[in-house]
């Protein structure tokens, strides 16, 4: 049982919000010591594993070009594109963003973010769509739209990223399994990540569809134009 002390240190350290790197190192060293390894032996295991897993940090090679593209307006252009999409309902705005975010993540484009996109762009657009179609939007509905806007960012980000062959998560899977004696290739892991990416998108679209339905039921229409037929 004492060998589980490393797990305990990680759980407590993360909950207490101590420095993540330090927590992991302390947990590792103490686990090694109670497991009967000598200090130099522990350093050797850590060092060897770190050298062997250098491929996990190959994303460093992409930083200069991404940095230059950000300087040249990469985010601004993406924002322009999203702003120009023609979605008539709240749910469709969110589903469209979810789709774009997920495909971008699968191509290793980190083009999302709550700060960069949800607050300044996606949430106002989703709320704007509701405002266009309905009158007197209550606080609860406004809050709900905010929640689903943030959710579309998280869902697209989480379940799209591992489709990229050299994503951090993919390399973590390859590296951790490798350390435990199971060999897999990054390509196989990234391909195996495709089905759940599709499920996540479909579930998100369904959730947003029901959001539209709920809003339409709760609020009264502004006018009986085409949008009313859309959301029925």
């Amino acid at each position: 049982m004492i060998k589980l002390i490393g797990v305990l240190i990680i759980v407590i350290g993360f909950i207490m919000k101590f420095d993540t790197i330090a927590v992991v190192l302390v947990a590792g060293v103490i686990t090694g010591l109670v497991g009967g390894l000598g200090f130099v032996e522990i350093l050797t295991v850590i060092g060897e594993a770190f050298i062997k897993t250098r491929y996990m940090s190959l994303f460093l090679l992409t930083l200069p070009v991404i940095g230059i593209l950000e300087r040249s307006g990469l985010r601004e252009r993406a924002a322009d594109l999203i702003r120009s999409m023609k979605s008539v309902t709240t749910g469709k705005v969110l589903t469209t963003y979810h789709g774009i975010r997920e495909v971008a993540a699968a191509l290793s484009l980190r083009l999302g973010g709550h700060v960069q996109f949800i607050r300044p762009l996606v949430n106002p657009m989703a709320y704007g769509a509701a405002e266009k179609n309905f009158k007197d939007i209550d606080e609860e509905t406004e809050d709900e739209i905010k929640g689903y806007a943030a959710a579309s960012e998280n869902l697209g980000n989480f379940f799209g990223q591992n489709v990229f062959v050299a994503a951090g998560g993919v390399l973590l899977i390859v590296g951790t399994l490798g350390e435990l004696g199971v060999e897999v290739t990054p390509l196989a892991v990234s391909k195996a990540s495709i089905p759940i990416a599709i499920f996540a998108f479909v579930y998100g679209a369904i959730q947003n569809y029901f959001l539209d339905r709920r809003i339409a039921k709760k609020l009264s229409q502004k006018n009986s134009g085409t949008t009313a037929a859309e959301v029925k």
Partner: protein
Amino acid sequence: MKALLLEIFYVLAGLVSIITAIHALRDEKHPHRNETALFWFLFGAIFIIGKYIPAALVGAMLLLMGVLTAMKRVTFGSLANAADEVRQQSADRMKNKIFVPALTIGVVAFFVAQVFKSLGGLVGLGFGAVAATVIAMVMTKEKPKQFGYDGSRLLLQVGSASILPQLLAALGSLFAAAGVGEVISGGIAGVLSEGNILGGVIAYCVGMALFTMIMGNAFAAFAVITAGIGMPFVYAAGANPAIAGALALTAGYCGTLMTPMAANFNVVPAALLETKNKYRVIISQVPIALALLVTHIVLMYVWAF
């Protein structure tokens, strides 16, 4: 061939880190520039010469880096992006062309992995990054020096967290050396018999989600739960490791969607959007997270075996 190419890319990655160290050192407004520079210099050195020095020395360098981050001495500083108007003007000028270099990385990586199977996706990522850099250099006409500056800016922004995946893999191998997996699986074996595949799959997926909820970090949970539950009850039972591994990590992400511990994703955005209920984001995500978790279990059970 593959090993040689990868080694070259490791040296280049190490150089990015060392250039970052130099920019941190020259940043006069940086409150801890010496310590921050030391951190990135050590990281770069491990990449370039780590293979040729005793592994214990690499371990010691990592502990020193851990001390620096524990003392909060590895921070961002004052490297600046271009002004808002300048970026908007440039975006208006370049239009969708600006996506070309960024997409090059992913496309080249996938192409190399698919066509030159012996080289693999990692070598592909290296080539993709180099190709993207060249294309961006031609398109933006920025000087190579500016590339070094902006790469350093991003690495300083990501900060010490960028070494976390590698450290977690190292933790996994220490757990393996100390026999932690046997202890956890011994505990679970009381409840679950080996060879009960469905039970193992459920324990692995739900374990990932729960542990991620407690720790707020699916990467850390993956190292622990894979050693303890995944190995004896899923992989040893003959699961396809690529499928089971991919699904286990995203099962952890289902946990991320449901926990305030993942503050960056769930709590900070709620504050940013000024929601009335501070758990609004989590409330919106719980139904879909649970549906996805069940989907993970079904997929792993049906598809990995």
